[in-house]
């Protein structure tokens, strides 16, 4: 807290000095960048990064804090960092959800109700970027950090200090986003298309770009860390073909983070240069190229949806065999599918640009590549259905959530095909059909997977059990509300409802009101969730080490696992999903 206040003061001081000494047109934008850099560095140093760096240089073991304050410090334990990620994701999720409810309130009726167009754009952009952050860190950041070292049988991540840095880059970025409405708001959506993002003197837009870059660096660091951890820290006997599928999914995610995020970070730094130094990468008035930004942005931002969804596939395929009491069907093929998605994911980006004015013939290969990605995605469904075939299904809460992912993602995947198909995309592009589609994949797939992971691993993380009935009620409410909300949006999209607009023709009123009501059902399900956590932490029954009778390594540690995870380094001999009776 002290660090945060000092950093804020330092940042504002630098910003004020900057805008006094620097001459317009360099002034305000440059002052904002310098002020933010000063604030970020002093914040990281004061929150404990300085001490960690000094300890690293001296070769000393980091001191251990054991009370609750460790969750607010630069702690190096992967379980603390995983929890920090989880809580941060939940806070950002609540914020993004409130932004969504504000939008739904505005969209309950045609015309403008209580927001101006400016305010609507800002709210919509903040909803978009905060939910993107949630989807990026919700499963990979929190459960990846908490569970993967345990599944590997490791004491911690390969680079604990880098891990803490990945997390502590997030709070400044989130605060920066929260500040944007007070510095002129945002008019460009989370994609920040140039030249809209390089034009206009709004400091809010500058802060948004800086926040995006910061999240990008956090993501790159965590990608490095997961790759190194999986490569070097696996327990004795844990060969790649015995690696739990969730860890596989996180490794694949980390590879995308490494390759893709650097590109978007670079392109946003170019946007910063365009704004501050008046370079002309993307400004057509000065000879810049508008389509270049879109190519660079989507080169990351399409693979980014796999950063969100692959951990979800991992969770799904991790949970299914445990509750089907059967080995994961086609495990090697499922691993190949995850790798296939990583590779194909990098050659499909221009399907976001079918109407952008790029060379017409380029649409052909990108259309075919994009449709090919349904083959590895289909394998995930094969593994799912094959695992359920002749299983003995236990309908515990994580399984109920996992089944909801299957039903949602099936719709999400199928509605992706008309968007991959260039002719139909000419009509559907940037309509609510797209909005409904990506909510089915990102919310119905990735966010539902985060809830699945939560219900599956919460007993391990806290040592307490959640209430099963509440968990299933929440799942039911959210599943119903979500589907009732987004199915009509497909239809509105094909009938002329554009993305990112605050108003619509009057004939849409009844459907829009229905959607707004259903968004309240989803909100209610989140309240049930919050109560369930509160109840479990206050007086949940003890979970025991292995409440689901699972076979992966994390269940061999105590609940919650102690510092260093395992008393003796574990050895692995059998396959992680060796359930069932031979026939």
């Amino acid at each position, binding site marked *: 807290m002290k660090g945060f206040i000092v950093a804020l003061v330092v940042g504002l001081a630098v910003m004020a000095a900057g805008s006094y000494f620097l001459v317009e047109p360099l002034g305000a934008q440059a002052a904002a960048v310098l002020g933010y850099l000063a604030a970020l560095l002093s914040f990281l140093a004061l929150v404990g990064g300085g001490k960690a760096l000094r300890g690293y240089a001296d070769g000393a073991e980091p001191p251990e804090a054991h009370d609750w304050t460790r969750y607010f410090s630069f702690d190096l334990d992967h379980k603390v960092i995983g929890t920090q990620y989880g809580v941060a994701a939940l806070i950002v999720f609540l914020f993004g959800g409130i932004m969504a409810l504000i939008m739904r309130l505005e969209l309950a009726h045609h015309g403008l109700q209580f927001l101006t*167009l*400016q305010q609507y*754009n800002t709210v919509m952009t903040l909803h978009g970027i905060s939910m993107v952050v949630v989807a990026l860190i919700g499963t990979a950041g929190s459960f990846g950090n908490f569970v993967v070292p345990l599944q590997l049988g490791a004491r911690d991540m390969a680079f604990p200090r880098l891990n803490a840095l990945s997390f502590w880059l997030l709070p400044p970025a989130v605060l920066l986003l929260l500040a944007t409405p007070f510095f002129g708001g945002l008019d*460009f*959506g989370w994609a920040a*298309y140039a030249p*809209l993002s390089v034009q206009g003197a709004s400091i809010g837009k500058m802060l948004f770009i800086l926040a995006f870059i910061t999240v990008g660096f956090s993501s790159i660091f965590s990608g490095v860390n997961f790759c190194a951890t999986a490569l070097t820290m696996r327990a004795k006997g844990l060969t790649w073909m015995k690696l739990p599928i969730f860890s596989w999914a996180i490794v694949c995610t980390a590879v995308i983070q490494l390759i893709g995020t650097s590109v978007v970070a670079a392109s946003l730094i170019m946007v910063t240069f365009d704004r501050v130094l008046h370079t002309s990468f993307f400004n057509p008035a000065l000879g*810049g*190229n*508008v389509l270049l930004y879109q190519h660079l942005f989507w080169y990351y931002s399409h693979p980014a949806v796999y950063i969100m969804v692959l951990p979800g596939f991992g969770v799904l395929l991790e949970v299914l065999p445990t509750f089907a*009491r*059967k080995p994961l*069907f086609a495990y090697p*093929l499922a691993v190949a599918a995850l790798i296939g998605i990583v590779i194909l994911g990098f050659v499909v980006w221009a399907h976001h640009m079918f*109407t*952008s*004015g790029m060379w017409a*013939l380029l*649409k052909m290969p990108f*259309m*075919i590549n994009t*449709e*090919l990605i349904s*083959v590895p995605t289909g394998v995930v469904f*094969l593994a799912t*259905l094959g695992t*359920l*075939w*002749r*299983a*003995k*299904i*236990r*309908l515990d809460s994580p399984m109920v959530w996992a*089944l909801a992912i*299957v039903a949602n993602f*099936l719709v999400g995947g*199928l509605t992706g*095909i008309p968007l991959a*198909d*260039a*002719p*139909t995309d*000419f*009509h559907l*592009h*940037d309509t609510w059909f797209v909005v409904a589609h990506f909510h089915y994949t990102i919310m119905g797939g990735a966010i539902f997977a985060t809830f699945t992971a939560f219900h599956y691993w919460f007993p391990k993380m806290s040592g307490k059990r959640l209430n099963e009935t509440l968990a299933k009620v929440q799942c039911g409410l959210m599943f119903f509300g979500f589907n009732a909300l987004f199915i009509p949006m497909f*239809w509105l999209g*094909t*009938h*002329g409802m*554009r*993305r*990112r*607009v605050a108003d619509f023709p009057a004939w849409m009123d009844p459907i829009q009101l229905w959607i707004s009501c259903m968004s309240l059902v989803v909100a209610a399900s989140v309240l049930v969730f919050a109560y369930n956590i509160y109840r479990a932490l206050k007086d949940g029954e003890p979970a025991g080490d292995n409440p689901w009778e699972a076979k992966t390594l994390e269940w061999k540690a105590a609940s919650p696992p102690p510092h260093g995870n395992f008393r003796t380094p574990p050895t692995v001999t059998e396959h992680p999903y*060796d359930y*069932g*009776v*031979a*026939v």
Partner: protein
Amino acid sequence: MKNKSVFPFVAVVGGLIAFGMYKAFTVFPTMPLQASVQAESVDGAWNGLLIVETSIYALVMSFLLYCLVMFRAAKREEQGDKFDRSRGRFVEVAWVLVSLALTLSLAALGAHELRALISDPSADIVVEVHAQQFSWEFYYPETKQYGTKLFMEKGKRHRIVLTSKDVVHSFWVPEFRVKQDAVPGKAVSLILTPTVTGKYTIMCNQLCGWGHTDMQGAVEVDEHDDFVNNTKASDF
């Protein structure tokens, strides 16, 4: 093979799901009025996809439901069947090959319609559409007329040449299906052949700033005589 009842179950339940979706698509048509030649190409591709996707959805959901009904653990200690991996090999290979074939044929259908949409650049009427925050302007270079409204002649091929003065905008008339971004710094063309007379709305479909919501324009498709009458004035 045990559990042979899966076949009739999937046939009946899957059939019901598919029939229900088909009914829903007829009661609530999936597309608005079809008012251009290009819309026929788009809707052709769309209807093909709709049939394939409805079938896949019905198959997967009915199979999933069958598993949920038939393979529940009555007691917690019950365990599922552990097969020898070789028994699943055939299913794995077949699944991958079938999905690959299906995907490639969908891509071929899409490529076919795409070619129809982009291969022929010839046009009877050229209209320049100038986009800017937050309005549209129309210019007919052959007659050197400016318009505040886009007049089009039914049955004629129009080349819409899109340019932008500031940021990226996008030209979309839902009834015509096809859309195209207007990119600052370059001119991009779109071929449109309207087939139904009437008044439609042009909507900007690319977030272009505060006023994006209100960036709409009017388009009117007329028979030949009305078109000539409406575009008679020096500017209109």
